[in-house]
């Protein structure tokens, strides 16, 4: 059996030796031209003139294109894959993110105003500097909490408001009743900071138009190549069969690489205009500014407890920033993944949430690892933590008391989502042992007596992973069918190529998908290769995001392998003169149960193509494709616990320990899964303690445009992790596997925030917004001191 083994990642040899092939590495026989962009330095401005004459005459310049040229070409828009709808019945006020400024208005820093295509990057950048743009700067709106205030500048004046949509979810009557009979009510402002994914590989695109064959090719840093091809049918209006999209090695996506960014169609447009391949590789600054940002919710919440600490109800009001435009998957957050998971790991009778989407003069917001759920866990867990402390109860015990009992699962939350499997009390029990919780509390008392501010943070939650099913996701607003696909092509020699509609940009599918296939086919893993990321080779797939690949594409691999085996058994049975049901497959052989009669896998596969002697009606060949639509999402669950030390003199937080007990059902490769938890936690640590896409509130200037100001965790900021699993299988797929890609980013921000507050609660601090930077923590301590 390969499944369940920590097999080394088959892709690592090329990555660790620096020999991957990323978009920027792709070489062609023709010379490649380079695109560079003139971007708005203003958060909000009217363009009065663009002068490009000087730039056109610069050395190496092939073309200069602006929004006027775009309009002339009659191109289209970046239409939503997951467009917003307004559940109150009003039309959502959608404005798609433009590729290039076409209406002489720029609405966020970094918006593209002009493109230069030149022989090399430096020439293209030189020419960009020679383009003169006259801007009339306008007042900007960059503070989410104030977006709907009177007098706030309007991003799109035609709507008369910055509100995009309004939606309500939950059972308000139960909530009302809960608050009425509450013994204790906790109220907090719980905003979630604006961050961005910052993958190691910046976005990059190369477009090529083959005039002779009237065929287009785009190499792209994408997570879902077929979706990219579909975007192009709307943007550059290219017929789907004419375009090949290749997503080669991609260095991290985290959801952020799902979108039809401006530079993607612009690079191909440049290629069409110049009849040369055109490439753009983003600089880190361009990416920090132009990659979709994430989170940025301004939320106020209240939680009602009874006298024993049972949570009766909670209610929230959220302003969810969209940025200046709607990015293509925005509503996967506001309309699908945010509110749905509010019950976390707890049995909470009453939940109500009001969400208003708002436009601001900032980079568009879209899904990033966790998409909506980090916000959800943070807003609920902060209330639980403070509620427990205000009531004088142990926060761990209070959580255990509210955890959903296993006998109540399947459990339908007050929001209406049904958790199909899991055992939260067991996760808490395992965590208590793993982290030595009781000893930690003892240690905390001692350290506090010595003036050392040690804190313990806790959180517990369910995740919604594995989108689809198609129908359920359609109902939640998706315009794409959330199935996935795999083809298993068995070659005559018995070697196998698997083609999957998923895309690995760090997930190690070349290892895990072949582990699954090797077990299913009963052959050695070295005899199987995986192909992903090429729309000319792989059937139409939906790609990798939302911790979905295993429970969709992975299950399609299972289904396609099973079909291959079913057919191969018919042939093998014919060759061995037995019934197919008499056969078992082991170590590359079909064996007649209970006998020594057997035949090699490769002999059967050869016969499948080359032998005329086969059962009546059995088609030649051995290749199967399965489109897999799961019966449900998957609902992984987890409990996280951390230990922090806060230096009260400087406000600096040291993360001493981090523990996670996860239930992700069947684990294909425990090493790969642990890597997912580590990486997710690192990004969650960043969100909690240091990452922030910051805008100057008065000028709208973007302040975190380089890694000198945008802080991501260094390896030295990350502790060793203590990780354990508790496995309950989901009934929604044949392997019982749930998604494991997002637990870290979902849990860590809340967990760490609770730890920091726990460390300095005795000094009077009750809440600090994230990121909990040393500066903010120090100021909070000063305010608490002044207030005492």
């Amino acid at each position, binding site marked *: 059996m390969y499944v369940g083994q920590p097999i080394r990642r088959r892709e690592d040899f090329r990555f660790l030796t620096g020999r991957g092939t990323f978009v920027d590495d792709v070489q062609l026989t023709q010379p490649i031209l380079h695109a560079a962009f003139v971007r708005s330095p203003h958060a909000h401005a009217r363009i009065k003139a663009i002068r490009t004459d000087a730039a056109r005459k610069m050395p190496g310049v092939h073309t200069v294109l602006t929004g006027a040229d775009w309009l002339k070409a009659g191109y289209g828009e970046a239409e939503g894959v997951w467009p917003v709808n307004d559940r109150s019945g009003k039309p959502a006020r959608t404005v798609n993110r433009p590729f290039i400024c076409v209406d002489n208005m720029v609405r966020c820093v970094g918006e593209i105003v002009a493109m230069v295509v030149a022989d090399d990057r430096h020439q293209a950048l030189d020419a960009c500097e020679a383009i003169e743009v006259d801007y009339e700067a306008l007042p900007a709106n960059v503070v989410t909490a104030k977006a709907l205030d009177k007098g706030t500048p309007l991003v799109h004046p035609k709507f008369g408001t910055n509100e995009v949509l309004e939606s309500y979810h939950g059972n308000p009557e139960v909530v009302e009743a809960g608050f009425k009979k509450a013994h204790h009510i906790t109220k907090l402002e719980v905003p979630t900071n604006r961050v961005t994914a910052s993958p190691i590989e910046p976005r990059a695109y190369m477009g090529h138009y083959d005039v002779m064959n009237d065929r287009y090719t785009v190499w792209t840093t994408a997570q879902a190549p077929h979706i990219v091809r579909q975007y192009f049918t709307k943007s550059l209006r290219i017929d789907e069969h004419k375009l090949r999209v290749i997503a080669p090695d991609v260095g991290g996506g985290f959801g952020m690489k799902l979108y039809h960014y401006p530079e993607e169609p612009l690079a191909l447009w440049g290629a069409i205009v110049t009849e040369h391949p055109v490439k753009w590789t983003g600089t880190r600054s361009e990416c920090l500014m132009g990659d979709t940002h994430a989170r940025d919710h301004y939320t106020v919440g209240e939680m009602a407890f009874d006298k024993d600490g049972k949570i009766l109800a909670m209610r929230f009001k959220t302003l969810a920033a969209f940025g200046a435009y709607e990015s293509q998957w925005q509503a996967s957050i506001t309309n699908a993944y945010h509110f749905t998971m509010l019950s976390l790991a707890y049995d909470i009778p009453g939940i109500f949430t009001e969400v208003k989407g708002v436009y601001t003069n900032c980079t568009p917001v879209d899904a990033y690892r966790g998409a909506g759920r980090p916000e959800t866990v943070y807003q609920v867990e902060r209330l639980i933590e403070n509620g427990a402390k205000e009531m004088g109860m142990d926060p761990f015990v209070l959580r255990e008391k509210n955890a959903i009992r296993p006998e109540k699962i399947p459990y339908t939350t007050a929001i209406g989502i049904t958790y199909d499997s899991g055992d939260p009390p067991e996760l808490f029990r395992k965590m208590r042992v793993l982290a030595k919780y009781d000893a930690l509390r003892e240690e905390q008392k001692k350290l506090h007596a010595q003036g050392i501010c040690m804190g313990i943070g806790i959180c517990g939650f369910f995740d919604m992973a594995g989108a689809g099913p198609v129908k359920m996701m359609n109902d939640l607003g998706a315009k794409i069918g959330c199935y996935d696909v795999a083809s298993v092509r068995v070659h005559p020699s018995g070697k196998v190529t698997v083609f999957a509609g998923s895309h690995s940009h760090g997930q190690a599918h070349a290892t895990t998908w072949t582990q699954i296939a090797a077990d299913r086919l009963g052959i050695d893993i070295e005899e199987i290769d995986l192909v992903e990321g090429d729309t000319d080779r792989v059937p139409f797939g939906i790609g990798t995001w939302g911790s979905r690949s295993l429970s969709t594409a992975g299950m399609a691999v299972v289904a396609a392998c099973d079909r291959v085996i079913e057919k191969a058994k018919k042939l093998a049975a014919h060759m061995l003169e037995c019934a197919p049901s008499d056969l078992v497959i082991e170590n590359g052989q079909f064996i007649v149960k209970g006998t020594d009669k057997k035949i090699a896998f490769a002999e059967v596969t050869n016969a499948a193509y080359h032998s005329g002697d086969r059962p009546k009606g059995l088609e030649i060949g051995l290749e199967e494709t399965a489109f897999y639509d799961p019966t449900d999402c998957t609902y992984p669950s987890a409990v996280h616990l951390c230990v922090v030390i806060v230096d009260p003199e400087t406000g600096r937080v040291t993360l001493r320990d981090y523990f996670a007990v996860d239930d992700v059902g069947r684990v294909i490769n425990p090493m790969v899964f642990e890597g997912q938890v580590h990486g997710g936690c690192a990004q969650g640590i960043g969100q909690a303690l240091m990452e922030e896409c910051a805008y100057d509130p008065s000028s709208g200037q973007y302040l975190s445009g380089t890694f000198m*100001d945008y802080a991501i965790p260094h390896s030295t900021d990350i502790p060793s992790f203590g990780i354990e699993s508790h496995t309950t299988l989901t009934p929604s797929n044949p392997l019982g596997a749930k998604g494991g890609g997002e637990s870290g980013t979902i849990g860590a921000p809340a967990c760490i925030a609770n730890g920091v507050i726990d460390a300095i609660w005795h000094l009077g601090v009750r809440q600090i917004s994230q990121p909990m930077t040393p500066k903010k923590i120090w100021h909070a301590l000063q305010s608490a001191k002044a207030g005492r």
Partner: protein
Amino acid sequence: MYAFNYHRPSSIAEAVKLLKASSDGRCLAGGMSLIPTMKHRLASAADLIDLNGIRELAFIRREGDALVIGALARHVEIADSADVKKSIPALAALAASVGDPQVRNRGTFCGSLCFADPAADCPAGLVGLNGTVITDKRRIAADKFFNGLYETTLEKGEIVTGVSFPIPEKAGWAKFANLASRFAIAAVMVAKTGGGVRVAVTGAKASVFRVPEMEAALAKNFSAAALDGIKISPDGMNNDLHGDPDYRAHLVSVMAKRAVQAATA
């Protein structure tokens, strides 16, 4: 990056000649500040004069009562040098706190002085330890070297060849690093030398500065407790995402105490 001419002289004299001949020349040692700034198109040079071919500048040595560091000595070499650790451990600690391993492997102490970044660590090392900058034609005292934000008193065509430090009785380094850049939000070098006590702060204002009240208090009593009650004014302190003037003023006090503790540990 804008186009430039690249030169790699093999002697100081040749480098000086190239620098003087250029309308807009800059010297390159480690390049850990200059190159990223050029890549961002925030700096440019008609001529880039790479000093890395002048091997005589790559040294760290004791010269009598002084520790002398050549213009090509990398941070990592200073941090690991037995001579430095023995004579001025605080300087080794400072070098070990610069940037990250990649920066320390390439970047140089003297290059950092010449770049005069307000948040760089090395300026506080120079001023706190009362070092002397050695150029191709003169010696410049620490207190006369910096001239505000990114400015020094070097003349056109003058090349720093090294820096010399007297050996202090005691010295201590404490740094509070920016989580993003790992530059100093506030960092302090404290030294007790034959010529008195010096307290130099970097990261907090437009340029490195000394704190006379602290120096006076420490001259009487070289202990962290001697700094109790000395208020640092937030006036003139930098204000950015990572620290406002009040916070920085507070950090100067905290880091000064920790530097004294390090010096007396």
